[in-house]
């Protein structure tokens, strides 16, 4: 697989992992018809050790674990999809793995990509809103010190 393919895949897997479970469910409900598939690895919850770096940019250290659920599926045409999603939402992981498989289909799935773009846009809006609220709490020492105009 080319690095462009990996980048595209990395993007959609990230969108699916960071979306809310109900958003992934909603997205899945619009995918018609749901394909037949085999579970290569049924949704399984475990832990990954989250690492930080000393001082933010030094040697890695173990910060603490987080729950993660992974799942792998295979479509009838042999394409395999994977999902790794923080938390314990088994249904979300299974749907995400299926979506990962469908998106790798020859020719892609423009319909699903459009749905994922919507999820990404919604997340961007939430992030931007939080960043604007944070910005309202920015201290402007410079203006305070000048006090002219």
């Amino acid at each position: 697989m080319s690095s462009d393919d990996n980048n595209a895949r990395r993007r959609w897997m990230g969108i699916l992992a960071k979306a809310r479970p109900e958003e992934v469910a909603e997205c899945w409900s619009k995918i018609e018809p749901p394909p037949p598939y085999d579970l290569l690895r049924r949704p399984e919850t475990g832990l990954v050790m989250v690492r930080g770096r000393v001082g933010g940019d030094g040697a890695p250290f173990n910060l603490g674990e987080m729950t993660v659920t992974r799942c792998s599926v295979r479509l009838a045409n042999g394409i395999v999809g994977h999902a790794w999603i923080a938390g314990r939402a088994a249904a979300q992981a299974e749907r995400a793995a299926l979506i990962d498989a469908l998106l790798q289909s020859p020719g892609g799935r423009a319909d699903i990509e459009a749905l994922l773009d919507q999820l990404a846009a919604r997340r961007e809006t939430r992030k931007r809103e939080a960043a604007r609220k944070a910005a309202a709490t920015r201290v402007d020492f410079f203006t305070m010190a000048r006090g002219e105009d």
Partner: protein
Amino acid sequence: MYVAVKGGEKAIDSAHRLMAEDRRGDRNVPELSLAQVSEQLGLAVERVMTEGSIHDRELAALAIKQAQGDLVEAVFLLRAYRTTLPRFGHTLPVDTAAMAIRRRISATFKDLPGGQVLGPTYDYTHRLLDFSLAEDGEPEEAPPAERPVDAAMPRVTDVLGREGLIERNPESDDEPRDLTRQPLTFPADRTLRLQNLARADEGFLLSLAYSTQRGYGHTHPFAGEIRMGEVSVELVPEELGFAIEIADVTLTECQMINQFKGSKEKPAQFTRGYGLAFGRSERKAMAMALVDRSLRAEELGEDLTSPAQDQEFVMSHSDNVEASGFVQHLKLPHYVDFQSELELVRRLRAQGPGKEAAE
């Protein structure tokens, strides 16, 4: 002895049911939902995730509900649950420089690129009880600024680092030791110490940090930067061979900047202490950074005089699950032990005062 244990079973079962009833409280009051705990007691949830050392809001909320708000008990519950889960691996180190900032302040630089962002903070409140919270009613929505904060803000220590005035962080790509997989042995390197401090009891760390400020191993600290916000967590699944994002998590990071006069080998420069914690855990991250720095005393050629500089003392007593277990095991039956002590005291008394000292 066995008779007593058997007799205890029924009593224990009844005690657990009584505790469950006690936990529920007045049944006329609506029961707490996990979502309510997670959303409205969020700082408690984040403390339990940090010290329980598992990032999972729902599990932490459940533990808090089950423990009736006893956070140390909740941490214990989370640690016990941990043992039921397989370990899938580790993430890539998180990049806190790329944090989506919700709070970022510096006590050392007034004007920083990106500015000082107060975020949601109790600082500058008067700590007066707000009786409006006792009534129903929703708070006003927080005002947004027209433009969001900068997408990426440099860490303050990176700005100082460019001039060489502050030490560089030790670089390494070695696998860090993991105290959940291997028993703790001394001396412990800094990465292992940071893991221990990250899951350490906040109260214990806070008191130790305070002790350094009061002169027990003083380190002349400045809060170089505290930042809080969301960071992307990535890992490389074996079946893929490239990194994917699995979540955004809220982290709090503290960079302490400390005075250092220099040594034979090193010129005078600032040294650093580092704190990192899950969630909005500012007090914890600050205390962690102070203790991280004080534990570097030996490395920096400072006199070892105080508890906060003693890694064996700090790391062996920082874990509230271990501490609570060992203190509380005193409640369990020690009838046989005590019986022999009792006999000893009786024998000594029978010999008369002073006899035992002469032996």
